[in-house]
């Protein structure tokens, strides 16, 4: 199952404030340009991770007990991220986050929390 997420400036700013993250690469385009990194803001790594967690949650209907992610690239403002979730077995899933250009941003394995029985 694939879930998608668009990296947008407003959301990145909200995250920067919540994190108390002063790194201007996440909210100041001029700072990005001064660093020679183009003209688009850099998505926070923990956001990429959270998007991956959310995709697993949405795909499996289960909460996350643990997750190990490796970051292989950087997503930037405007990127449309796709999260491909493959259930490995009853307890775990694999997730791969890619940009619309096909570059892998992150991938890893997630252990799912025990399913909660539905109330009768």
């Amino acid at each position, binding site marked *: 199952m694939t879930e998608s997420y668009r990296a947008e400036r407003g*959301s990145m700013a*909200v995250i920067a404030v919540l994190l108390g993250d002063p790194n201007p690469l996440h909210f100041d385009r001029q700072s990005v340009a001064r660093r020679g990194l183009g003209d688009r803001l850099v998505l926070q790594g923990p956001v990429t991770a959270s998007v991956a967690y959310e995709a697993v949650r949405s795909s499996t209907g289960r909460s996350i007990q643990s997750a190990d992610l*490796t970051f292989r690239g950087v997503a930037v403002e405007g990127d449309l991220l796709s999260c491909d979730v493959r259930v490995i077995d009853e307890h775990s899933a694999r997730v791969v986050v890619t940009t619309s250009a096909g570059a892998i941003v992150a991938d890893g394995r997630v252990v799912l929390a025990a399913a909660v029985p539905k109330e009768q």
Partner: protein
Amino acid sequence: MPSVRADALPLVLPSATTRIEPFENWLFRQAVGATPSYDDVHEGFGYVACARGSAVSLSELLSMVGCHPDDGPMLMSSSIELPSPLRVGIDYTVTARILSLEGARGRTLGRYDVMAHEWCLVDGDGSTVYRYVGRLAIPRADPA
């Protein structure tokens, strides 16, 4: 130069207290594309609670190993463990440790160190309800 010596690790850092407010969780969930909720704490918010609630900020952690945010540190990997769900409106103790600092070399980064650090959220019963371990690449200038 790093003020933290690799042979003195792991290094336990001061702890602090934090609380997840429902409106912050709502804003976070919206920002990462999750279904809006005040009470259902997103797994990703554990990182936010630690980063903001820790007595030692990520910038200060980097400074301790001789790195400024402008040096371009990069998150290489992250691991989280959630033995039980996070909850809004209760106090958590945020603990922090620098676990390791190891030298490395790569084609893109050149010489760099890998710093592993840990943040945990501990509830009032002393149970760890969230553990985060991040591994950051710390660029180092090659000696002239």
